């Protein structure tokens, strides 16, 4: 493990020790964050998969309905009947905070149409009614799907980021800091020992000198 390039002084030692404690605490916190994020993420993703399966199935069947309707009716009539929608949707977006990740929450408000069918019944086929009906049934789930899927994407990004941070702290920062601290302590201890032997030596010399004088 490489050590940091610092001077082996007491001041540096003190500084590194505080950095190490901060890094350790940060590591623990981030690890907890990652675990909790993962838990939430898996819940969301499971629901997301379920919902997507449902919605896709429903949409495919609605599409089939439209295909049948367009086959039964004349193309002009078919397009005309879908031309002017009776309702319009407005979307409300609020944000929900999941572990400091802002994920959007959608809720929609429809302008009040009396009917979901944007046409009279005289010239259209029953298949079209059916298809439109099916589509408007899925609508709330379609929105929920958008919400879940966006949340999943955003959480995945955050987890990836957090995981990188945890790993960087665990395998780079913390070993590097402790290694450097060890190096400095050893160097300081070595200096101390060198100092001690020098003092002892000087003392010995002084005693010898005194003895010779007598």
């Amino acid at each position, binding site marked *: 493990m490489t050590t940091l390039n610092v001077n082996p002084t007491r001041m540096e030692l003190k500084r590194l020790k505080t950095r190490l404690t901060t890094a350790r605490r940060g590591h623990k916190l981030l690890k907890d964050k990652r675990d909790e994020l993962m838990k939430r993420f898996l819940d969301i993703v499971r629901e997301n998969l379920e919902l997507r399966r449902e919605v*896709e199935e429903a949409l495919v069947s609605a599409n089939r309905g439209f295909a049948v309707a367009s086959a039964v009716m004349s193309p002009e009539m078919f397009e005309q009947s879908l031309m002017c929608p009776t309702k319009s949707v407005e979307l409300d977006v609020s944000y929900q905070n999941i572990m400091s990740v802002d994920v959007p929450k959608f809720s929609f408000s429809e302008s009040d149409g009396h009917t979901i069918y944007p046409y009279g019944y005289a010239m259209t086929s029953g298949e079209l009614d059916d298809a439109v009906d099916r589509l408007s049934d899925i609508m709330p789930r379609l929105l929920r799907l958008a919400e879940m899927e966006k949340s999943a994407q955003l959480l995945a990004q955050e987890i990836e980021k957090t995981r990188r941070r945890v790993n960087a702290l665990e395998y780079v920062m913390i070993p590097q800091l402790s290694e450097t601290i060890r190096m400095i302590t050893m160097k300081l201890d070595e200096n101390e020992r060198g100092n001690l032997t020098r003092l002892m030596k000087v003392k010995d010399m002084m005693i010898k000198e005194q003895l010779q004088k007598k």
Partner: protein
Amino acid sequence: MSSGYKLAVLGDRESILGYRTLGFHVREAENEADGRRELSDLAKEGYAVIYVTEQLACRIEDEIAKYKDSPLPAIILIPGKTGSLGIGMKGVHSAVERAVGADILA
């Protein structure tokens, strides 16, 4: 809470016709170039949710990936007139892979 966001559906003509009845805004895009242009237009115009048919999405994947990490717009893949291609499902699995490191729900 802010309101007044809009919903859009992007795809080929036949696939998206029905969504008009729901009050969604629909944008037609028959080819790749149209798809790219419409998508970036929609994103700029402040649409919060953009549904894109899989048939179109598989050709403009890189354009869609741009919006993956921003909170809005949410770009959601839906099956088009020829049915589901499984790309939407793949997207969910790739999110799992990104977060966990391996696709544990496969």
